[in-house]
């Protein structure tokens, strides 16, 4: 409670903490619902994952860090063993969505856009922060959904939330775990070691060369791993920080564009199976590389554009 009374803590931080609590509660609900669900093939594993995750989201600020670290390791065990499963969810039928669309029509876009609009308005017009805006947008969307369609009771929304969380599954936490891995790389001094190796190859102090290596490195590294999120933590700690950011360049521009340079790598690799290989199967294409073939030129133009853009506006 001291945290919420503390005058030193900004209002935005306090509201965000409440949003985390509510989000954590819905996550914990997902775990408990599946624990009690006899149709779930792995009740305990599923519950362990979601209840621990929800508890860290809700109360992470107050848990001792060693305990949180241990909980994260425990939480990942059922995920790695593929013991986090979906239970009995209320599938939506095409008849139901069509009937609902016939009732409310294009007005369904109002709650859909509310979230992004909320984030933007709060980021630009208040000092509460974009994420409080996302939370407000979600609340507005929920209220609009209930007004537009009386059958959207709070219980329906809660169970749809559980269905979505179960659908995205534990792999949705990958970017979070990669962020943690980045922190561990930094703490273990990985950045300095890479900087030393790369420093022997490329001249230190030439920022433009640094930008080119960082950008192309992001693209190739992502192409090898099939995941830009995995590449950016390693590349930023090892190349971006010592060879580009250390020379006073704009961390907003360089750090953010590195990610979309990585996306250029995603566009050209069969390793990004979800984006480039699964559609081949879904649309019955004859050749395995038809999707990549139709993205290759776009990816090359975009990596070039981004390098030039970073060099000019660094």
């Amino acid at each position, binding site marked *: 409670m001291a945290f919420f009374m503390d005058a030193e803590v900004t209002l935005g931080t306090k509201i965000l903490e409440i949003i985390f609590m509510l989000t954590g509660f819905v996550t914990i609900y997902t775990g408990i619902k599946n624990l009690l669900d006899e149709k779930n093939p792995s009740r305990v594993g599923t519950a362990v994952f979601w209840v621990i995750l929800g508890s860290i989201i809700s109360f992470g600020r107050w848990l001792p860090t060693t305990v949180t670290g241990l909980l994260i390791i425990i939480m990942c065990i059922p995920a790695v063993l593929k013991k986090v499963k979906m239970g009995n969810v209320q599938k939506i039928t095409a008849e139901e969505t069509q009937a609902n669309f016939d009732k409310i029509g294009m007005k369904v876009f109002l709650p859909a856009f509310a979230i992004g609009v909320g984030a933007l308005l709060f980021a630009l017009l208040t000092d509460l922060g974009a994420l409080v805006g996302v939370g407000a947008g979600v609340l507005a969307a929920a209220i609009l959904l209930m007004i537009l369609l009386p059958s959207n009771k709070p219980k329906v929304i809660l169970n749809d939330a559980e269905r979505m969380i179960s659908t995205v599954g534990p792999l949705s936490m990958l970017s979070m775990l990669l962020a943690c891995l980045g922190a561990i790389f930094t703490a273990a001094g990985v950045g300095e070691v890479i900087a030393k190796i790369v420093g022997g190859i490329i001249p230190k102090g030439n920022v433009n060369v640094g930008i080119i290596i960082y950008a192309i490195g992001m693209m190739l590294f992502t192409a090898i*791993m099939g995941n830009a999120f995995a590449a950016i933590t390693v590349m930023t700690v090892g190349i971006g920080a010592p060879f580009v950011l250390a020379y006073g360049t704009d961390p907003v521009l360089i750090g953010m564009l590195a990610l979309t340079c990585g996306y250029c790598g995603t566009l050209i690799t069969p390793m990004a199976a979800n984006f480039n290989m699964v559609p081949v199967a879904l649309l019955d294409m004859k050749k395995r590389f038809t999707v990549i073939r139709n993205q290759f030129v776009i990816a090359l133009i975009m990596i070039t554009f981004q390098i030039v853009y970073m060099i000019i506006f660094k």
Partner: protein
Amino acid sequence: MEYITLIGIVVVILGFALKLDNILTVIAAAIVTALAGGMGVKGLLDTLGSSFVANRNITIFITVLIVTGTLERSGLKEAAAALIGKVKNASAGVIVSAYAIMRAVFAAFNISFGGVAGFVRPLIMPMSTAAVKNKYGEINEEHEEQIKGMASSAENVGNFFFQVLFVGGSGALLVQGTLAGLGYEVELVDLAKAEIPVAIVALVVAIVYYIVRDKRLMKKYYESGNK
């Protein structure tokens, strides 16, 4: 031998490249890096715990999921289908481009409505092949193959380069968290602003590419023989 700390990077590259379980790969890389770097078990758990809590912003996607399911239930996909259905008398290249624009705008607001499985397959492909058949009476197999490729490409390009405009998206949050760990504090809204020119150029490049490519394919497969 300080190079031993790089073993975590080797684990990440091998784990992802060999398609091992992603979560296992990342946790294994974290453990070996911490131990090789002399952080010990307590150092590992402390860093893991504190960075997870510091990066809790990334879990805002779960907050958004709270309403995503009910949006779907309330007919979001049907509304998107009605919207793209307004594109009439267009070539396949134009239909694919229209989809790229729509996907892009919605991605910037963190809205998705089916992807390749849920939208391209049941809607964009039938619209595109119908457009070709209306004009030429038949569709060349190789042309159809490339339209499928372009439609999947439109899904990816629109999604990738515009999801970064959503203030509060996972990508920007990961960048923010990574930079914070290195001592650089940046605002989410500034990260989104930096991507505006990139997003617009990507969309324009993609549209020009699809339309030019489709025109060339039509010339190659239907018109060359008639002259």
